[in-house]
């Protein structure tokens, strides 16, 4: 058995350290990893836990991110608990294998510390990588701060390893703004954390020699569609298992998470919809603009895949104006999040949709300030009063040079 680590009731951890401790407490059998900024410390911290006897499993230091996920797939098929971490270009290199992992229904947990994609090369945080992997058939969870990076990592194993789910799971956290920002984190003890996650019993492992399994078969037009449809169906219904884990985690820790989360929306007319650390900034701005008489709120989702179309549509339908904040470049389209939120409103029957606008911000971690957020709320307020857009649908925030706006 590995050494138990005595933790304080409150630890000062950044998002990476929080994730590392969650992986340690999950007592993963195999971690195959390759470092990349800003997720590097997850791998380094894990290495230090291994070197000091806090981990019993195998730590495989591979030669690339593609190999990291390849090793994870082999290890998961062999039949144990598996995790890794990456960002940006590394995630891009992994993508091929992400599809194979979900196609084989292997419950791997991946920490994705969100970062911009080159070119130009940029090591800082935005959500471009998350959107790059969105159709890979993984569950995608979103966190706002180190406490949540810790909590969601513990919960991710429960979700991925649920026998009704068996879908690999990504825990997203914002590069630097979460991964390198130290905050108070209330960890569980090693024992309580492990008991929450529980032992993992895999289905059809390669190391069961009495029942040889074939993994990664070819399936042409006769069967390919059925395989993909089954994965999609399970993914779309995994929200039930996800909420159940959120609920059990609440019972254990009194920390409440929901698939769709709202801030001050009871009487709100205008809301900002965002992911990651921006949610916390938007909450501050909402509080401040209420003093200006703007009935402001914030909405976020904890689960980007499966996208909670129905739940989100129900919550958003009664607002007058909604700003959808995309921290990535849509490259030839409206923001990815904008499109999905708009689609969710079409799930709601006979509703008067709010006025939607799309803000592209924070690319390569360009600052999004309170001044920016207040301005967005003011624009939303104008839209709400006019009951129509008073500016272009898509606007860029914080971009130097001539103002760019589209649609």
């Amino acid at each position, binding site marked *: 058995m590995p050494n138990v680590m005595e933790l304080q009731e409150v630890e000062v951890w950044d998002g990476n350290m929080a994730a590392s401790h969650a992986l340690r407490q999950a007592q993963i059998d195999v971690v195959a990893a390759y470092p990349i900024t800003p997720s590097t410390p997850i791998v380094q911290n894990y290495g230090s836990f291994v070197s000091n006897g806090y981990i019993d499993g*195998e730590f495989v230091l591979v030669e690339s991110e593609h190999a990291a996920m*390849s090793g994870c797939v082999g290890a998961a098929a062999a039949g144990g608990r598996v995790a890794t971490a990456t960002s940006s270009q590394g995630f891009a290199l992994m993508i091929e294998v992400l599809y194979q992992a979900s196609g084989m229904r292997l419950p791997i947990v991946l920490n994705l510390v969100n970062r911009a994609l080159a070119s130009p090369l940029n090591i800082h945080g935005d959500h471009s990588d998350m959107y790059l992997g969105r159709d890979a058939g993984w569950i995608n969870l979103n966190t706002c701060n180190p406490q949540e990076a810790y909590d969601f990592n513990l919960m991710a194993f429960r979700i991925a390893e649920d026998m009704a789910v068996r879908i690999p799971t990504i825990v997203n956290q914002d590069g630097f703004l979460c991964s390198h920002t130290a905050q108070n984190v209330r960890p569980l003890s090693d024992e309580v954390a492990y008991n929450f996650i529980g032992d993992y019993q895999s289905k059809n492992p390669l*190391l*069961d020699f009495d029942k040889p399994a074939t993994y990664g078969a070819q*399936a042409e037009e006769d069967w390919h569609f059925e395989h993909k449809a089954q994965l999609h169906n399970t993914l779309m219904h995994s929200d039930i298992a996800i909420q159940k884990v959120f609920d059990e985690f609440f019972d254990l820790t009194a920390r409440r998470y929901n698939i769709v989360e709202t801030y001050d929306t009871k009487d709100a007319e205008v809301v900002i919809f965002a992911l990651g650390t921006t949610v916390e900034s938007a909450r501050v701005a909402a509080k401040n603009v209420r003093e200006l008489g703007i009935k402001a709120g914030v909405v976020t989702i904890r689960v980007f895949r499966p996208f909670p179309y129905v739940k989100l549509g129900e919550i958003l339908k009664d607002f007058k104006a909604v700003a959808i904040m995309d921290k990535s470049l849509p490259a030839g389209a409206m923001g990815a999040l904008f499109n999905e939120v708009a689609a969710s409103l079409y799930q709601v029957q006979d509703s008067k949709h709010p006025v939607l606008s799309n803000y592209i911000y924070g690319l390569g971690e360009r600052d999004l300030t309170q001044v920016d957020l207040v301005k967005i709320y003011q624009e939303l307020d104008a839209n709400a009063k006019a009951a129509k857009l008073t500016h272009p649908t898509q606007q860029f925030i914080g971009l130097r040079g001539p103002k760019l706006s589209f649609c």
Partner: protein
Amino acid sequence: MVNEVKNLKQFSKSAEKFEGAHLLCPGCAHGMIIREVLNVVDGPLVLGNSTGCVEVSTAVYPYTSWDVPWIHIGFENGSTAVAGVEAMYRALAKKGKYNGQRPKFVAFGGDGSTYDIGFQWISGCFERGHDMTYICLDNEVYANTGGQRSSSTPIGASTSTTPAGKVSYGKKERKKDILFVMAAHGSPYVAQVAPNKWKDMNKKIKQAIETEGPTFINAMSACTTEWKFDSNQTVEVSDLAVDSLVFPLFEIINGVEVRITYRPKNIIPVRDYLGAQGRFKHLFKPENEYILEQFQKNVNDRWEYLQRREEAKV
């Protein structure tokens, strides 16, 4: 744990772990080599496979030809998939969650997966020292995609991306020397085998699988479709390859010690081997005669080099 197959009768009877119902071409040497590997291992065995002829011919859902645990991920990462399985075995054994006999771990790839697209992954696995055997089914061409050149394709071969034409004699470059590249990783055992010399192949595969650490086998696998010979000629063409020394049989121990394991009694001219295959047909035109000479010289030089390495024991 590891069997020695003593005669062909035994060989023909003991292949139930790889079903005859597969989609490989008639006369394909891949099937012969795979059967040999599966015959050699008696205990638990996990196989990995890169994308390629074998993968698409043996695991078409809902069927499988494999009666052993088998995994395929992609074209480049068959080695790392097996490394992942091996790491999981170590983790579970350490934790007391796997109590059975220690399994053997084997990865198959074609020359595309091995020499080219998957090379980085194999190199990584060997550097990290996983206990596994990597077996390249070397048919010197991307056969699964319709016969494009690989870095294993010999000089002068006409392939679908280096076709012989009015101004070209086919592939311009020599075959990559994969065995010495793999030996340079410090692997405890690397060897080159050919299925026609099946006893030599059996012995080497046995040694590779029994040796702890990452070991490598390069298996010449004559391809009726792309080498262009009749499907009943596989063994004959393979005989020509080893007897002309185009494909010499040798092994390298601990990355340094070279041992030649087969010395033809009568070394035959390279042109006899080349002449038996359609892919080299154009080399027999007068204007390409110099390539035949170049090919023979390359083979002679290489044989000389191997013998000197063997003598020097380095």
